[in-house]
């Protein structure tokens, strides 16, 4: 691939989302570089949070970028923001890996951290953190019940029934607790 606009290589250059999408659809290498710089840490953080293993998270992030590259033509602006779409790909790729038999076999040999561990434990590992102070604050304010249900549903891809079984609460309670958890997160993040 040839660089068509050398000036956009500059770190300070920013794109509007429609501009970026257009360049991604054209297969511009620089656009993918920009995408990585902008969203790489967020996507990598989510993947790492799901699989909890650095090497595997790196492989998955690469796979996610290839999936973005392959499927960008199918992405429609009307269906939501680019970041939401990429996050969806990243989360599902990571969850699929965790749920694959290969990963389970690996887990038997080399036990990974329990999924209900707080992210504070991650800071103790060699993985560099960016904004865990903010996350810790939110999590402690969120409460254990809400944090757990978000963890299982959003980061581990559990179904309603699986959440109900794991937390030993009725299906109806799962539904209402999901709602109150999201309302509280919105409040804590102060998103209007």
């Amino acid at each position, binding site marked *: 691939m040839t660089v068509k606009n050398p000036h956009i290589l500059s770190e300070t250059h920013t794109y509007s989302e429609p501009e970026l999408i257009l360049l991604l659809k054209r297969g511009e290498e620089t656009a993918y570089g920009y995408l990585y*710089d902008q969203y790489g*840490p967020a996507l990598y953080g989510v993947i790492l*949070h799901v699989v909890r293993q650095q090497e595997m998270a790196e492989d998955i992030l690469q796979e996610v970028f290839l999936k973005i*590259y392959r499927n960008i033509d*199918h992405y429609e602006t009307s269906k939501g*923001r680019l970041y939401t779409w990429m996050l969806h790909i990243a989360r599902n790729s990571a969850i699929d890996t965790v749920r694959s038999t290969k990963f389970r076999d690996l887990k038997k040999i080399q036990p990974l951290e329990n999924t209900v561990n707080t992210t504070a434990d991650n800071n103790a590992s060699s993985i560099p953190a960016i904004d865990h102070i903010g*996350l810790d604050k939110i999590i402690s304010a969120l409460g254990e019940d809400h944090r757990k249900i978000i963890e299982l549903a*959003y980061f581990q891809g559990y179904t*309603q029934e699986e959440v109900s079984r794991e937390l030993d609460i009725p299906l109806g309670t799962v539904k209402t607790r999901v709602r109150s958890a999201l309302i509280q*997160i919105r409040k804590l993040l102060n998103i209007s």
Partner: protein
Amino acid sequence: MNIEEYISSGIIENYVLGLTSPEENLEVEEMSARHPEVARAIEAYRHTMDAYSSLHAVKPPEQLKARIIDAIRTENSNPPQESATLMSNNTKENAAVILLRKWKRWAIAATILLIVSLVFNGIYIGKYQKSRDSYTTLLQSQQRLAAQNNTMEARLVKVEKNMQVLMNPAMKSVVMEGVNNHPGMLATIYWDAESRQTYLGTTNLPVPPKGMAYQLWAIVDGKPVDMGMYNPADQKGLLSMKDVIPGKIQAFAITLEKQGGSPAPTMDQMYVMGKI
């Protein structure tokens, strides 16, 4: 349920977290398309979860960017089969919904095809029955013609055989004429002077009375010799008779005898005779 109640029912939050069933997903998407308030509520929660996810951001290892850009570059120069990757970024639920939609489309298409097929079946059954009838007619006609052809062939063989007999240079003939009170009656006899095979040609003798039959005789060395029985009703062309015994043939004659023939001719019942 009004829209406010629907939005606050909890289904939106569960949908955004991927906890709803494929059927519920369809319902939410339909509501979202019809009611902007629902679409806004979904978007707001997605934004919330995007922001919550961002809090987990971790700086990837330094070398990873180069590796990933390299992988994209490699793929860019060798595009893989596209179909395999299309489904991979959909959630299991989305895949199920897409499958359901596809299935519905196929079901409609299949139903239309079935109806069209049934209509054509009706038309073709009619055509088939007509064709079958004309085929049966043709088959019968063909069988009739074949039978006729066989008969003709048999007759031709017989005529050819007769021709061979008559065209044999050794073949001799004598016309037997009516005698006594049978004037005008005629019969022709053919015999091979070498093999002594004998044939009776067509005659104009009347049908014999009941219980009676004609008998052919040869006079050899002054004695009458039985040459076989003759029924004008059976005759079609040359009729092969007994061979003439050795000796000098002086005459042939036909007499009327009782059924089954007689050892010696009844002289007063002689119909025709031909001297050689």
